[in-house]
């Protein structure tokens, strides 16, 4: 039986996706699981002789509602930190008991009222020429007032969203003078530096924003990385490991490039090896490929690697 197979596939997909929505640590994963749940439910509707709802489910839910969730995450940042402590004593245990009791109750009710006949919607579906036509007939005749109320509801919701999400400005607009005074006050009170925040660093491996800037003593400047990246754990924060990364990249490039004919390879030692800081062990001397001559056909894949030009990386 074809619909039985679809039922089992869709039911397993839906329940797994629902569990994933609830259990996932990251909100984005929850949203993706919600997408899968909606697709599974749509398949279930398709096996229940509801082709219009099957399409509407996928269009409305995966197409707009989950997208709305994703847009919200984009606006307010992906904050994965969740307080795990209980604010109400015994809330988790009580919730678990309540959920289990409700599940048992529902399953008992279903088991007590086992439905023998699966029902047949073909006559109702064919009465007006199709499922969508039959639904339209019902919506615009029997349920027309509910439909009008729904339109008013949607309109109100759109207005409410505009009013709520619109950022309200209280008081006069703050100018340069006020901003500067506020900055200096923060510096005086809390010691927050009035200087601009350092930008992310640029290293031989890449110039992504995941590479933090280094302070003059070789430490990582924590302000130079976005806190969102820190939360995701994609930041290269290991300052002592950075010289190794640079050496690795240099070796990789040197292995890729054609061997130099007779020009002596310049041996370069990074400038930070001369400064003896405890947090920054001196890296091994790097062997850089020669700078390409104009006749060379293969361009240097990473011209920013040459640290002799300090302004070249900008």
């Amino acid at each position: 039986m074809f619909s039985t197979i679809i039922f089992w596939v869709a039911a397993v997909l839906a329940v797994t996706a629902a569990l994933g929505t609830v259990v996932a640590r990251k909100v984005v994963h929850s949203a993706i699981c919600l997408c899968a749940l909606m697709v599974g439910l749509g398949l279930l509707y398709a096996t229940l002789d509801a082709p219009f709802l099957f399409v509407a489910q996928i269009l409305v839910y995966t197409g707009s509602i989950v997208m709305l969730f994703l847009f919200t995450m984009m606006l307010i940042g992906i904050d994965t930190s969740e307080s795990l402590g209980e604010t109400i004593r015994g809330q988790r245990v009580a919730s678990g008991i309540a959920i289990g009791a409700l599940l048992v109750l529902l399953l008992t009710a279903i088991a007590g009222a086992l439905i023998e006949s699966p029902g047949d919607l073909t006559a109702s579906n064919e009465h007006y020429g199709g499922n969508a036509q039959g639904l339209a007939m019902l919506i615009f005749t029997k349920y027309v007032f509910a439909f009008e109320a729904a339109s008013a509801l949607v309109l109100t919701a759109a207005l409410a969203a505009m009013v709520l999400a619109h950022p309200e400005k209280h008081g006069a607009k703050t100018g340069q003078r006020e901003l500067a005074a506020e900055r200096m006050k923060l510096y005086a009170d809390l010691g927050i530096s009035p200087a601009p925040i350092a930008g992310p660093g640029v290293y031989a491996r890449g110039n992504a924003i995941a590479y933090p800037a280094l302070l003059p003593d070789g430490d990582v400047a924590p302000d130079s990385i976005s806190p969102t990246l820190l939360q995701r754990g994609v930041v290269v924060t290991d300052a002592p490991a950075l010289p190794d990364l640079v050496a690795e990249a240099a070796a990789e490039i040197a292995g890729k490039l054609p061997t130099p004919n007779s020009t002596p390879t310049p041996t370069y030692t990074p400038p930070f090896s001369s400064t003896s800081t405890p947090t920054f062990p001196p890296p091994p001397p790097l062997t850089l490929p020669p700078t390409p001559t104009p006749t060379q056909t293969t361009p240097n894949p990473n011209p920013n690697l040459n640290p002799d030009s300090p302004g070249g990386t900008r």
Partner: protein
Amino acid sequence: MSPNAYLIVSAVLFCVGLSGVLLRRNALVVFMSVEVMLNAANLALVTFSKVHSVLDGQVAAFFTMVVAAAEVVVGLAIIITIFRSKASLSLDDARRLRH
């Protein structure tokens, strides 16, 4: 497939959504769990529509979808507004509404 299987799936989905509402603190996840519960109810409606061989259940499910869409729009706007003032998505931080 017997309608009972659909009803069991619906009950399980409802309880999973309920657990998300009761146990999670992140406002967005709680909101998604509410969506799961709404859809579980929808599945039961469509199943009973087939059992009774009338289309009214499907119309009810359709209206539930409309209400869910409106609810999501307003709810997410509220979440954004709370996030602007509290800089947090945790529901525990939003318990004080007087400020």
